[in-house]
Protein backbone atom coordinates (compact mmCIF):
# COMPACT_ATOMS: atom_id res chain seq x y z
CA UNK A 1 0.00 0.00 0.00
CA UNK A 2 1.18 3.52 -0.77
CA UNK A 3 0.00 6.97 0.28
CA UNK A 4 -2.17 6.91 -2.83
CA UNK A 5 -3.62 3.56 -1.72
CA UNK A 6 -4.48 5.08 1.63
CA UNK A 7 -6.19 8.06 -0.03
CA UNK A 8 -8.07 5.75 -2.37
CA UNK A 9 -9.30 3.57 0.49
CA UNK A 10 -10.44 6.61 2.47
CA UNK A 11 -12.19 8.08 -0.53
CA UNK A 12 -14.49 5.09 -0.83
CA UNK A 13 -15.19 4.66 2.87
CA UNK A 14 -18.80 5.73 2.24
CA UNK A 15 -19.38 4.55 -1.26
CA UNK A 16 -22.85 6.05 -1.78
CA UNK A 17 -21.73 9.50 -0.69
CA UNK A 18 -18.60 9.33 -2.81
CA UNK A 19 -20.48 8.10 -5.88
CA UNK A 20 -23.08 10.86 -5.51
CA UNK A 21 -20.35 13.46 -5.20
CA UNK A 22 -18.54 11.96 -8.17
CA UNK A 23 -21.77 12.08 -10.16
CA UNK A 24 -22.17 15.78 -9.34
CA UNK A 25 -18.59 16.43 -10.38
CA UNK A 26 -19.12 14.40 -13.54
CA UNK A 27 -22.14 16.50 -14.49
CA UNK A 28 -20.29 19.73 -13.69
CA UNK A 29 -17.28 18.79 -15.81
CA UNK A 30 -19.51 17.45 -18.59
CA UNK A 31 -21.17 20.88 -18.66
CA UNK A 32 -17.74 22.48 -18.54
CA UNK A 33 -16.58 20.50 -21.57
CA UNK A 34 -19.75 21.12 -23.57
CA UNK A 35 -20.00 24.82 -22.79
CA UNK A 36 -16.29 25.40 -23.31
CA UNK A 37 -16.48 23.57 -26.63
CA UNK A 38 -19.35 25.84 -27.66
CA UNK A 39 -17.85 29.02 -26.23
CA UNK A 40 -14.26 28.45 -27.32
CA UNK A 41 -14.77 29.53 -30.94
CA UNK A 42 -16.55 32.69 -29.77
CA UNK A 43 -13.84 33.54 -27.32
CA UNK A 44 -11.12 33.02 -29.88
CA UNK A 45 -9.96 35.38 -32.56
CA UNK A 46 -11.86 33.74 -35.40
CA UNK A 47 -10.97 31.03 -37.86
CA UNK A 48 -8.31 31.45 -40.49
CA UNK A 49 -9.48 31.05 -44.06
CA UNK A 50 -6.31 29.05 -44.74
CA UNK A 51 -7.13 25.81 -46.56
CA UNK A 52 -10.89 26.48 -46.84
CA UNK A 53 -12.51 25.49 -50.14
CA UNK A 54 -15.67 27.50 -49.49
CA UNK A 55 -15.82 31.07 -48.31
CA UNK A 56 -18.70 33.22 -47.16
CA UNK A 57 -18.98 36.86 -48.15
CA UNK A 58 -21.06 39.03 -45.84
CA UNK A 59 -21.48 42.71 -45.21
CA UNK A 60 -18.37 44.07 -43.51
CA UNK A 61 -20.27 45.70 -40.68
CA UNK A 62 -22.98 43.21 -39.79
CA UNK A 63 -24.11 39.91 -41.11
CA UNK A 64 -27.70 41.16 -40.95
CA UNK A 65 -26.94 43.87 -43.49
CA UNK A 66 -27.93 42.78 -46.99
CA UNK A 67 -25.70 42.88 -50.04
CA UNK A 68 -26.75 43.81 -53.61
CA UNK A 69 -27.19 40.87 -55.97
CA UNK A 70 -25.12 42.78 -58.47
CA UNK A 71 -21.99 41.85 -56.54
CA UNK A 72 -22.41 38.22 -57.58
CA UNK A 73 -21.04 38.77 -61.07
CA UNK A 74 -18.09 40.75 -59.77
CA UNK A 75 -17.21 38.05 -57.26
CA UNK A 76 -17.50 35.42 -59.99
CA UNK A 77 -14.83 37.26 -61.94
CA UNK A 78 -12.25 37.24 -59.14
CA UNK A 79 -9.40 34.92 -60.20
CA UNK A 80 -9.54 31.62 -58.35
CA UNK A 81 -13.31 31.75 -57.77
CA UNK A 82 -14.91 28.63 -59.17
CA UNK A 83 -18.52 29.23 -58.25
CA UNK A 84 -20.77 31.66 -56.39
CA UNK A 85 -24.28 31.46 -55.07
CA UNK A 86 -26.23 33.31 -52.42
CA UNK A 87 -28.62 32.79 -49.56
CA UNK A 88 -30.79 35.05 -47.45
CA UNK A 89 -32.21 34.64 -43.99
CA UNK A 90 -35.99 34.33 -44.26
CA UNK A 91 -36.97 33.74 -40.63
CA UNK A 92 -40.69 33.00 -40.44
CA UNK A 93 -42.70 30.38 -38.59
CA UNK A 94 -44.58 27.26 -39.50
CA UNK A 95 -47.78 27.19 -37.37
CA UNK A 96 -45.96 28.08 -34.15
CA UNK A 97 -42.71 29.87 -33.29
CA UNK A 98 -41.72 26.74 -31.34
CA UNK A 99 -41.48 24.91 -34.67
CA UNK A 100 -38.44 26.92 -35.60
CA UNK A 101 -36.09 25.81 -38.37
CA UNK A 102 -34.04 27.94 -40.75
CA UNK A 103 -35.48 28.94 -44.10
CA UNK A 104 -33.42 30.30 -46.95
CA UNK A 105 -34.25 31.67 -50.39
CA UNK A 106 -31.61 30.13 -52.69
CA UNK A 107 -30.81 29.59 -56.36
CA UNK A 108 -31.95 25.95 -56.63
CA UNK A 109 -29.37 24.42 -58.92
CA UNK A 110 -26.49 26.68 -57.92
CA UNK A 111 -27.13 25.84 -54.27
CA UNK A 112 -26.85 22.09 -54.77
CA UNK A 113 -23.83 22.61 -57.02
CA UNK A 114 -22.22 24.54 -54.21
CA UNK A 115 -23.02 21.83 -51.66
CA UNK A 116 -22.37 18.53 -53.45
CA UNK A 117 -22.43 16.76 -50.08
CA UNK A 118 -26.22 17.17 -50.05
CA UNK A 119 -28.13 14.66 -52.10
CA UNK A 120 -31.42 15.49 -53.86
CA UNK A 121 -33.33 13.45 -56.38
CA UNK A 122 -32.63 14.99 -59.84
CA UNK A 123 -36.33 15.02 -60.69
CA UNK A 124 -37.08 16.86 -57.45
CA UNK A 125 -34.29 19.32 -58.18
CA UNK A 126 -35.83 19.96 -61.59
CA UNK A 127 -39.20 20.46 -59.94
CA UNK A 128 -37.62 22.85 -57.46
CA UNK A 129 -36.01 24.81 -60.24
CA UNK A 130 -39.18 24.94 -62.31
CA UNK A 131 -41.73 25.67 -59.60
CA UNK A 132 -41.56 29.27 -58.47
CA UNK A 133 -43.36 28.55 -55.21
CA UNK A 134 -41.49 25.26 -54.81
CA UNK A 135 -39.52 24.37 -51.71
CA UNK A 136 -37.30 21.49 -50.70
CA UNK A 137 -36.66 20.55 -47.09
CA UNK A 138 -34.24 18.40 -45.15
CA UNK A 139 -35.90 14.99 -45.15
CA UNK A 140 -36.26 14.86 -41.34
CA UNK A 141 -38.82 17.69 -41.49
CA UNK A 142 -41.27 15.43 -43.32
CA UNK A 143 -41.54 13.10 -40.37
CA UNK A 144 -41.41 15.97 -37.89
CA UNK A 145 -44.43 17.75 -39.36
CA UNK A 146 -46.15 14.90 -41.20
CA UNK A 147 -45.59 16.55 -44.56
CA UNK A 148 -45.77 14.85 -47.94
CA UNK A 149 -44.42 15.84 -51.31
CA UNK A 150 -47.08 17.93 -53.01
CA UNK A 151 -48.32 19.53 -49.80
CA UNK A 152 -48.88 23.24 -49.63
CA UNK A 153 -46.88 24.63 -46.72
CA UNK A 154 -47.89 27.98 -45.19
CA UNK A 155 -45.16 30.02 -43.56
CA UNK A 156 -45.89 33.14 -41.54
CA UNK A 157 -43.22 35.70 -42.35
CA UNK A 158 -41.79 37.73 -39.50
CA UNK A 159 -39.18 39.74 -41.38
CA UNK A 160 -40.50 39.56 -44.88
CA UNK A 161 -43.98 40.57 -45.96
CA UNK A 162 -45.54 40.10 -49.36
CA UNK A 163 -46.24 42.97 -51.73
CA UNK A 164 -49.94 42.81 -50.82
CA UNK A 165 -49.00 43.53 -47.21
CA UNK A 166 -49.77 40.08 -45.92
CA UNK A 167 -47.19 37.91 -44.22
CA UNK A 168 -48.61 34.52 -45.11
CA UNK A 169 -46.32 32.86 -47.63
CA UNK A 170 -47.54 29.73 -49.39
CA UNK A 171 -45.08 27.20 -50.75
CA UNK A 172 -45.36 23.88 -52.56
CA UNK A 173 -43.26 21.05 -51.21
CA UNK A 174 -41.51 19.49 -54.21
CA UNK A 175 -38.62 17.55 -52.70
CA UNK A 176 -36.26 16.70 -49.90
CA UNK A 177 -32.51 16.56 -49.46
CA UNK A 178 -30.16 14.69 -47.12
CA UNK A 179 -26.45 14.26 -46.59
CA UNK A 180 -24.76 11.86 -49.00
CA UNK A 181 -22.86 10.27 -46.11
CA UNK A 182 -25.39 8.25 -44.05
CA UNK A 183 -23.27 8.94 -40.97
CA UNK A 184 -23.62 12.69 -41.37
CA UNK A 185 -26.66 14.89 -40.96
CA UNK A 186 -27.53 17.63 -43.41
CA UNK A 187 -28.54 20.99 -41.92
CA UNK A 188 -32.21 21.10 -41.11
CA UNK A 189 -33.65 23.82 -43.34
CA UNK A 190 -36.30 24.81 -45.82
CA UNK A 191 -34.98 26.07 -49.16
CA UNK A 192 -37.21 28.27 -51.29
CA UNK A 193 -36.82 29.72 -54.76
CA UNK A 194 -34.99 33.05 -54.56
CA UNK A 195 -36.66 34.42 -57.71
CA UNK A 196 -40.12 33.94 -56.22
CA UNK A 197 -39.02 35.38 -52.89
CA UNK A 198 -37.44 38.41 -54.54
CA UNK A 199 -40.46 39.14 -56.68
CA UNK A 200 -42.98 38.64 -53.93
CA UNK A 201 -41.33 40.49 -51.05
CA UNK A 202 -42.40 44.04 -50.36
CA UNK A 203 -38.95 45.58 -49.85
CA UNK A 204 -35.20 45.12 -50.44
CA UNK A 205 -35.64 43.70 -53.91
CA UNK A 206 -32.37 42.63 -55.50
CA UNK A 207 -30.62 42.10 -52.19
CA UNK A 208 -29.22 38.93 -50.71
CA UNK A 209 -28.00 37.90 -47.27
CA UNK A 210 -24.59 36.54 -48.15
CA UNK A 211 -22.63 34.87 -50.89
CA UNK A 212 -21.03 31.47 -50.74
CA UNK A 213 -17.93 31.16 -52.89
CA UNK A 214 -16.14 28.01 -53.97
CA UNK A 215 -12.43 28.48 -54.63
CA UNK A 216 -10.47 26.36 -57.06
CA UNK A 217 -7.40 26.08 -54.79
CA UNK A 218 -7.91 26.07 -51.02
CA UNK A 219 -4.28 27.16 -50.60
CA UNK A 220 -5.23 30.40 -52.31
CA UNK A 221 -8.26 31.00 -50.07
CA UNK A 222 -6.66 33.83 -48.05
CA UNK A 223 -5.62 35.66 -51.21
CA UNK A 224 -9.03 35.21 -52.81
CA UNK A 225 -10.79 36.40 -49.65
CA UNK A 226 -8.55 39.47 -49.65
CA UNK A 227 -9.23 40.10 -53.32
CA UNK A 228 -13.02 39.93 -52.87
CA UNK A 229 -12.96 42.32 -49.92
CA UNK A 230 -10.61 44.66 -51.78
CA UNK A 231 -13.05 44.71 -54.68
CA UNK A 232 -15.80 46.24 -52.56
CA UNK A 233 -13.64 48.16 -50.11
CA UNK A 234 -14.66 51.57 -51.37
CA UNK A 235 -18.18 50.64 -52.46
CA UNK A 236 -21.39 51.40 -50.53
CA UNK A 237 -21.42 47.72 -49.59
CA UNK A 238 -18.00 46.69 -48.30
CA UNK A 239 -17.67 42.99 -47.56
CA UNK A 240 -16.02 40.63 -45.12
CA UNK A 241 -15.00 37.24 -46.40
CA UNK A 242 -14.52 34.41 -43.97
CA UNK A 243 -14.83 30.64 -43.62
CA UNK A 244 -18.21 28.96 -43.32
CA UNK A 245 -17.42 28.01 -39.73
CA UNK A 246 -16.59 31.58 -38.80
CA UNK A 247 -19.73 32.79 -40.52
CA UNK A 248 -21.85 30.23 -38.65
CA UNK A 249 -20.36 31.38 -35.38
CA UNK A 250 -20.95 35.04 -36.19
CA UNK A 251 -24.53 34.12 -36.94
CA UNK A 252 -24.98 32.29 -33.64
CA UNK A 253 -23.26 35.09 -31.76
CA UNK A 254 -26.22 37.33 -32.57
CA UNK A 255 -28.06 35.76 -29.67
CA UNK A 256 -25.57 37.32 -27.26
CA UNK A 257 -22.09 37.01 -25.81
CA UNK A 258 -21.94 33.24 -25.78
CA UNK A 259 -18.52 33.06 -24.12
CA UNK A 260 -19.75 35.30 -21.32
CA UNK A 261 -22.96 33.30 -20.94
CA UNK A 262 -20.99 30.07 -20.77
CA UNK A 263 -18.69 31.55 -18.15
CA UNK A 264 -21.69 32.71 -16.12
CA UNK A 265 -23.34 29.31 -16.20
CA UNK A 266 -20.10 27.52 -15.36
CA UNK A 267 -19.38 29.88 -12.47
CA UNK A 268 -22.77 29.10 -10.95
CA UNK A 269 -22.35 25.36 -11.50
CA UNK A 270 -18.88 25.23 -10.04
CA UNK A 271 -19.75 27.39 -7.07
CA UNK A 272 -22.49 24.88 -6.23
CA UNK A 273 -20.11 21.98 -6.78
CA UNK A 274 -17.53 23.69 -4.60
CA UNK A 275 -20.00 23.86 -1.72
CA UNK A 276 -21.18 20.30 -2.28
CA UNK A 277 -17.72 18.79 -2.46
CA UNK A 278 -16.49 20.87 0.45
CA UNK A 279 -19.40 19.53 2.50
CA UNK A 280 -18.50 15.95 1.51
CA UNK A 281 -14.88 16.44 2.49
CA UNK A 282 -15.80 18.11 5.78
CA UNK A 283 -18.17 15.27 6.66
CA UNK A 284 -15.55 12.72 5.74
CA UNK A 285 -12.97 14.50 7.90
CA UNK A 286 -15.27 14.78 10.90
CA UNK A 287 -15.96 11.05 10.76
CA UNK A 288 -12.33 10.08 11.01
CA UNK A 289 -10.75 12.58 13.33
CA UNK A 290 -9.63 9.69 15.61
CA UNK A 291 -8.15 7.87 12.62
CA UNK A 292 -6.13 10.91 11.65
CA UNK A 293 -4.95 11.01 15.25
CA UNK A 294 -3.84 7.39 14.91
CA UNK A 295 -1.85 8.28 11.81
CA UNK A 296 -0.15 11.06 13.72
CA UNK A 297 0.44 8.73 16.65
CA UNK A 298 2.32 6.23 14.49
CA UNK A 299 4.51 9.01 13.15
CA UNK A 300 2.73 10.86 10.33
CA UNK A 301 3.76 14.50 10.57
CA UNK A 302 1.23 17.35 10.56
CA UNK A 303 2.20 18.20 6.99
CA UNK A 304 1.95 14.62 5.80
CA UNK A 305 -1.45 14.15 7.41
CA UNK A 306 -2.82 17.33 5.82
CA UNK A 307 -1.32 16.30 2.47
CA UNK A 308 -3.26 13.05 2.68
CA UNK A 309 -6.47 14.97 3.26
CA UNK A 310 -5.94 17.50 0.49
CA UNK A 311 -4.67 14.75 -1.80
CA UNK A 312 -7.90 12.86 -1.26
CA UNK A 313 -9.87 15.95 -2.19
CA UNK A 314 -7.83 16.49 -5.36
CA UNK A 315 -8.17 12.80 -6.22
CA UNK A 316 -11.96 13.00 -5.85
CA UNK A 317 -12.18 16.06 -8.09
CA UNK A 318 -9.81 14.57 -10.66
CA UNK A 319 -11.80 11.35 -10.93
CA UNK A 320 -15.03 13.33 -11.33
CA UNK A 321 -13.37 15.61 -13.89
CA UNK A 322 -11.95 12.76 -15.95
CA UNK A 323 -15.30 10.98 -15.99
CA UNK A 324 -17.02 14.20 -17.06
CA UNK A 325 -14.39 14.99 -19.68
CA UNK A 326 -14.55 11.42 -20.99
CA UNK A 327 -18.33 11.58 -21.30
CA UNK A 328 -18.09 15.04 -22.83
CA UNK A 329 -15.59 13.86 -25.42
CA UNK A 330 -17.89 10.99 -26.35
CA UNK A 331 -21.04 13.13 -26.74
CA UNK A 332 -19.41 16.08 -28.52
CA UNK A 333 -19.37 14.39 -31.94
CA UNK A 334 -23.13 13.88 -31.67
CA UNK A 335 -23.61 17.43 -30.39
CA UNK A 336 -21.49 18.67 -33.25
CA UNK A 337 -23.99 17.29 -35.76
CA UNK A 338 -26.60 19.60 -34.25
CA UNK A 339 -24.42 22.67 -33.72
CA UNK A 340 -22.93 22.43 -37.18
CA UNK A 341 -26.23 23.67 -38.56
CA UNK A 342 -26.10 27.02 -36.89
CA UNK A 343 -22.65 27.67 -35.44
CA UNK A 344 -20.24 25.20 -36.98
CA UNK A 345 -18.80 22.04 -35.46
CA UNK A 346 -17.74 21.80 -31.82
CA UNK A 347 -15.01 19.50 -30.62
CA UNK A 348 -12.93 18.51 -27.63
CA UNK A 349 -9.64 20.36 -27.78
CA UNK A 350 -6.42 19.74 -25.88
CA UNK A 351 -6.97 23.15 -24.30
CA UNK A 352 -10.31 22.05 -22.86
CA UNK A 353 -8.76 18.86 -21.47
CA UNK A 354 -5.88 20.74 -19.87
CA UNK A 355 -8.27 23.37 -18.48
CA UNK A 356 -10.50 20.64 -17.02
CA UNK A 357 -7.62 18.90 -15.29
CA UNK A 358 -6.19 22.17 -14.00
CA UNK A 359 -9.62 23.24 -12.81
CA UNK A 360 -10.13 19.91 -11.05
CA UNK A 361 -6.81 20.28 -9.24
CA UNK A 362 -7.62 23.84 -8.17
CA UNK A 363 -11.12 22.78 -7.07
CA UNK A 364 -9.60 19.91 -5.08
CA UNK A 365 -7.09 22.21 -3.44
CA UNK A 366 -9.74 24.78 -2.52
CA UNK A 367 -12.17 22.15 -1.25
CA UNK A 368 -9.47 20.31 0.68
CA UNK A 369 -7.77 23.37 2.14
CA UNK A 370 -9.92 23.75 5.24
CA UNK A 371 -10.08 20.03 6.13
CA UNK A 372 -6.34 19.81 5.56
CA UNK A 373 -5.75 22.73 7.90
CA UNK A 374 -7.97 21.07 10.50
CA UNK A 375 -6.02 17.84 10.11
CA UNK A 376 -2.74 19.66 10.42
CA UNK A 377 -3.75 21.40 13.64
CA UNK A 378 -5.26 18.28 15.17
CA UNK A 379 -3.94 17.52 18.67
CA UNK A 380 -3.55 13.79 19.04
CA UNK A 381 -4.80 13.43 22.60
CA UNK A 382 -7.89 15.55 21.96
CA UNK A 383 -8.66 13.68 18.76
CA UNK A 384 -8.22 10.25 20.37
CA UNK A 385 -10.67 11.24 23.09
CA UNK A 386 -13.29 11.89 20.39
CA UNK A 387 -12.98 8.27 19.29
Amino acid sequence: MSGMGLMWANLFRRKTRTFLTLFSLLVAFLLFVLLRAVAEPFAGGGVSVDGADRLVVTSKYSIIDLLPLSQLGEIQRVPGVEGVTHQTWFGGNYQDPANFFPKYPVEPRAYFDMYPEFAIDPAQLDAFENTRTGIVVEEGLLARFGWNIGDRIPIQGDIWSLKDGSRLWQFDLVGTYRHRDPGEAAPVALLMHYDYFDEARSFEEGAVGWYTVRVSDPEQAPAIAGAIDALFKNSPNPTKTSTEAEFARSFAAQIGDIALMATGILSAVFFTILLLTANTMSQSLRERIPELAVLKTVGFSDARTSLLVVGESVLLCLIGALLGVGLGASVLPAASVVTQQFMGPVSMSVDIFVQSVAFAVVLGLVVGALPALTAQRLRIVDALRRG
Partner: protein
Amino acid sequence: MAIVDLSEVRKSYVKGREEVEVLTGIDLAVEEADFLALMGPSGSGKTTLLNIIGGIDSATSGSVQVSGQDLAAMSRRQLAKWRSENIGFVFQFYNLLPVLSARRNVELPLLLTKLSGKQRRSNADTALEIVGLEDRARHKPGELSGGQQQRVAIARAIVADAPILVCDEPTGDLDRDTADEILELLEILNRDHGKTIVMVTHDPKAASHARHVVHLDKGQLSTGTDEEAA
Protein backbone atom coordinates in the same frame (compact mmCIF):
# COMPACT_ATOMS: atom_id res chain seq x y z
CA MET B 1 20.06 2.02 31.92
CA ALA B 2 16.65 3.72 32.03
CA ILE B 3 15.02 3.95 28.60
CA VAL B 4 12.28 6.09 30.12
CA ASP B 5 13.43 8.68 32.62
CA LEU B 6 10.93 11.18 34.01
CA SER B 7 11.90 13.76 36.57
CA GLU B 8 9.57 16.17 38.37
CA VAL B 9 6.99 15.89 35.58
CA ARG B 10 3.96 18.04 36.08
CA LYS B 11 0.94 18.36 33.87
CA SER B 12 -1.88 20.77 34.34
CA TYR B 13 -4.61 22.18 32.20
CA VAL B 14 -7.09 24.96 32.49
CA LYS B 15 -10.72 24.02 32.92
CA GLY B 16 -12.89 27.09 32.84
CA ARG B 17 -11.19 29.51 35.22
CA GLU B 18 -9.60 26.76 37.25
CA GLU B 19 -6.20 25.18 36.73
CA VAL B 20 -6.36 21.43 37.23
CA GLU B 21 -3.12 19.64 38.04
CA VAL B 22 -3.20 16.07 36.67
CA LEU B 23 0.39 15.05 37.43
CA THR B 24 2.11 16.61 40.38
CA GLY B 25 5.81 15.93 40.11
CA ILE B 26 6.33 12.45 38.75
CA ASP B 27 9.71 10.76 38.96
CA LEU B 28 9.83 7.50 37.06
CA ALA B 29 12.57 5.38 35.52
CA VAL B 30 11.82 2.39 33.30
CA GLU B 31 14.72 0.16 32.42
CA GLU B 32 15.25 -1.17 28.94
CA ALA B 33 13.29 -4.42 28.33
CA ASP B 34 11.19 -3.84 31.41
CA PHE B 35 7.44 -4.52 31.51
CA LEU B 36 5.83 -1.89 33.70
CA ALA B 37 2.19 -1.79 34.66
CA LEU B 38 0.80 1.60 35.58
CA MET B 39 -2.27 1.25 37.78
CA GLY B 40 -4.64 3.65 39.36
CA PRO B 41 -8.25 4.71 39.57
CA SER B 42 -10.05 6.60 36.85
CA GLY B 43 -8.88 10.19 36.56
CA SER B 44 -5.60 9.49 38.33
CA GLY B 45 -3.58 10.63 35.31
CA LYS B 46 -2.46 7.19 34.03
CA THR B 47 -3.28 7.85 30.40
CA THR B 48 -1.86 11.38 30.55
CA LEU B 49 1.41 9.97 31.89
CA LEU B 50 1.44 7.28 29.20
CA ASN B 51 0.78 9.90 26.50
CA ILE B 52 3.67 12.00 27.76
CA ILE B 53 5.99 8.96 27.65
CA GLY B 54 4.76 8.19 24.14
CA GLY B 55 5.39 11.74 22.95
CA ILE B 56 1.80 12.52 22.00
CA ASP B 57 1.28 14.90 24.91
CA SER B 58 3.70 17.24 26.60
CA ALA B 59 4.49 17.89 30.25
CA THR B 60 3.82 21.34 31.67
CA SER B 61 7.17 21.16 33.43
CA GLY B 62 9.84 18.65 34.35
CA SER B 63 12.16 16.50 32.30
CA VAL B 64 11.00 13.72 29.97
CA GLN B 65 13.83 11.62 28.57
CA VAL B 66 12.78 8.66 26.44
CA SER B 67 15.20 6.59 24.36
CA GLY B 68 17.85 9.13 25.24
CA GLN B 69 15.88 12.08 23.84
CA ASP B 70 14.60 15.12 25.69
CA LEU B 71 11.07 15.22 24.33
CA ALA B 72 10.43 18.78 25.51
CA ALA B 73 13.17 20.03 23.22
CA MET B 74 11.69 18.49 20.09
CA SER B 75 9.40 20.15 17.52
CA ARG B 76 6.11 18.52 16.51
CA ARG B 77 7.73 17.28 13.31
CA GLN B 78 10.73 15.87 15.15
CA LEU B 79 8.42 14.22 17.66
CA ALA B 80 6.41 12.59 14.87
CA LYS B 81 9.56 11.13 13.37
CA TRP B 82 10.83 10.06 16.79
CA ARG B 83 7.55 8.30 17.55
CA SER B 84 7.68 6.41 14.27
CA GLU B 85 11.08 5.02 15.21
CA ASN B 86 10.77 4.53 18.96
CA ILE B 87 7.21 4.01 20.10
CA GLY B 88 4.54 1.46 19.32
CA PHE B 89 1.06 2.34 20.54
CA VAL B 90 -1.66 -0.10 21.58
CA PHE B 91 -5.02 1.40 22.49
CA GLN B 92 -7.98 0.02 24.41
CA PHE B 93 -10.29 0.22 21.39
CA TYR B 94 -7.62 -0.92 18.89
CA ASN B 95 -7.92 2.23 16.74
CA LEU B 96 -7.52 0.41 13.46
CA LEU B 97 -8.51 2.06 10.19
CA PRO B 98 -11.76 0.33 9.17
CA VAL B 99 -11.22 0.84 5.44
CA LEU B 100 -7.91 -1.04 5.44
CA SER B 101 -7.23 -4.76 5.68
CA ALA B 102 -5.25 -6.13 8.63
CA ARG B 103 -2.08 -6.22 6.54
CA ARG B 104 -2.53 -2.64 5.39
CA ASN B 105 -3.24 -1.44 8.92
CA VAL B 106 0.00 -3.07 10.04
CA GLU B 107 1.82 -1.57 7.07
CA LEU B 108 0.83 2.00 8.01
CA PRO B 109 3.92 2.93 10.06
CA LEU B 110 6.13 1.54 7.30
CA LEU B 111 4.77 4.13 4.84
CA LEU B 112 7.09 6.54 6.62
CA THR B 113 10.17 4.43 5.88
CA LYS B 114 12.11 4.02 2.67
CA LEU B 115 11.19 0.36 2.38
CA SER B 116 9.82 -0.83 -0.96
CA GLY B 117 6.21 -1.93 -1.22
CA LYS B 118 7.30 -5.56 -1.31
CA GLN B 119 9.45 -5.16 1.80
CA ARG B 120 6.63 -3.36 3.59
CA ARG B 121 4.21 -6.18 2.83
CA SER B 122 6.77 -8.76 3.90
CA ASN B 123 7.44 -6.98 7.20
CA ALA B 124 3.72 -6.60 7.82
CA ASP B 125 3.21 -10.32 7.20
CA THR B 126 6.02 -11.12 9.64
CA ALA B 127 4.42 -8.94 12.32
CA LEU B 128 1.07 -10.61 11.72
CA GLU B 129 2.77 -13.98 12.01
CA ILE B 130 4.26 -12.99 15.38
CA VAL B 131 0.80 -12.17 16.71
CA GLY B 132 -0.64 -15.32 15.14
CA LEU B 133 -2.85 -13.66 12.53
CA GLU B 134 -1.09 -14.49 9.29
CA ASP B 135 -4.27 -16.10 7.97
CA ARG B 136 -6.31 -12.94 8.62
CA ALA B 137 -4.12 -10.56 6.64
CA ARG B 138 -6.79 -9.70 4.08
CA HIS B 139 -9.59 -9.25 6.58
CA LYS B 140 -10.81 -5.80 7.48
CA PRO B 141 -11.22 -4.87 11.17
CA GLY B 142 -14.99 -5.29 10.95
CA GLU B 143 -14.46 -8.92 10.00
CA LEU B 144 -12.26 -9.67 13.03
CA SER B 145 -13.08 -10.34 16.69
CA GLY B 146 -12.00 -7.89 19.39
CA GLY B 147 -9.03 -10.04 20.35
CA GLN B 148 -7.95 -10.38 16.73
CA GLN B 149 -8.24 -6.62 16.22
CA GLN B 150 -6.06 -6.03 19.25
CA ARG B 151 -3.49 -8.46 17.86
CA VAL B 152 -3.49 -6.49 14.61
CA ALA B 153 -2.96 -3.32 16.65
CA ILE B 154 -0.01 -4.99 18.41
CA ALA B 155 1.40 -6.09 15.05
CA ARG B 156 1.14 -2.45 13.91
CA ALA B 157 2.96 -1.37 17.09
CA ILE B 158 5.88 -3.74 16.52
CA VAL B 159 6.16 -3.71 12.73
CA ALA B 160 8.64 -0.82 12.64
CA ASP B 161 10.66 -2.48 15.42
CA ALA B 162 10.05 0.29 17.93
CA PRO B 163 11.88 -0.54 21.19
CA ILE B 164 9.07 0.78 23.43
CA LEU B 165 5.41 -0.25 23.46
CA VAL B 166 2.96 1.97 25.27
CA CYS B 167 -0.31 0.20 25.89
CA ASP B 168 -3.39 2.01 27.18
CA GLU B 169 -5.77 -0.52 28.75
CA PRO B 170 -5.01 -3.05 26.00
CA THR B 171 -7.37 -5.61 27.49
CA GLY B 172 -10.06 -3.21 28.69
CA ASP B 173 -12.44 -4.13 25.89
CA LEU B 174 -11.83 -7.90 25.93
CA ASP B 175 -13.20 -10.90 27.79
CA ARG B 176 -10.98 -12.65 30.32
CA ASP B 177 -9.66 -15.42 28.07
CA THR B 178 -8.93 -13.11 25.17
CA ALA B 179 -7.36 -10.62 27.56
CA ASP B 180 -5.05 -13.34 28.86
CA GLU B 181 -4.00 -14.22 25.32
CA ILE B 182 -3.16 -10.58 24.60
CA LEU B 183 -1.22 -10.25 27.86
CA GLU B 184 0.70 -13.43 27.10
CA LEU B 185 1.53 -11.99 23.71
CA LEU B 186 2.84 -8.81 25.37
CA GLU B 187 4.88 -10.96 27.73
CA ILE B 188 6.43 -12.78 24.78
CA LEU B 189 7.26 -9.49 23.09
CA ASN B 190 8.87 -8.32 26.30
CA ARG B 191 10.69 -11.54 27.12
CA ASP B 192 11.66 -12.86 23.69
CA HIS B 193 11.88 -9.69 21.62
CA GLY B 194 13.24 -7.35 24.30
CA LYS B 195 10.49 -4.77 23.97
CA THR B 196 10.12 -2.29 26.79
CA ILE B 197 6.46 -2.17 27.68
CA VAL B 198 4.62 0.49 29.66
CA MET B 199 1.03 -0.58 30.17
CA VAL B 200 -1.80 1.33 31.76
CA THR B 201 -4.42 -0.87 33.37
CA HIS B 202 -6.88 -0.82 36.20
CA ASP B 203 -7.08 -4.62 36.20
CA PRO B 204 -4.81 -6.27 38.84
CA LYS B 205 -4.84 -9.53 36.89
CA ALA B 206 -3.55 -7.75 33.81
CA ALA B 207 -0.94 -5.97 35.91
CA SER B 208 0.21 -9.34 37.23
CA HIS B 209 1.74 -10.05 33.82
CA ALA B 210 4.12 -7.10 34.23
CA ARG B 211 7.55 -7.29 35.87
CA HIS B 212 6.89 -4.15 37.86
CA VAL B 213 3.81 -2.25 38.90
CA VAL B 214 3.51 1.37 39.90
CA HIS B 215 0.39 3.04 41.25
CA LEU B 216 -0.76 6.49 40.34
CA ASP B 217 -3.25 8.30 42.50
CA LYS B 218 -4.14 11.97 42.44
CA GLY B 219 -1.21 12.66 40.15
CA GLN B 220 1.41 11.01 42.30
CA LEU B 221 3.22 7.72 41.98
CA SER B 222 3.76 4.98 44.50
CA THR B 223 5.87 1.97 43.56
CA GLY B 224 4.40 -1.52 43.88
CA THR B 225 6.28 -4.53 45.14
CA ASP B 226 7.56 -7.46 43.15
CA GLU B 227 4.99 -9.62 44.87
CA GLU B 228 2.26 -7.43 43.40
CA ALA B 229 3.62 -8.05 39.96
CA ALA B 230 4.08 -11.75 40.50
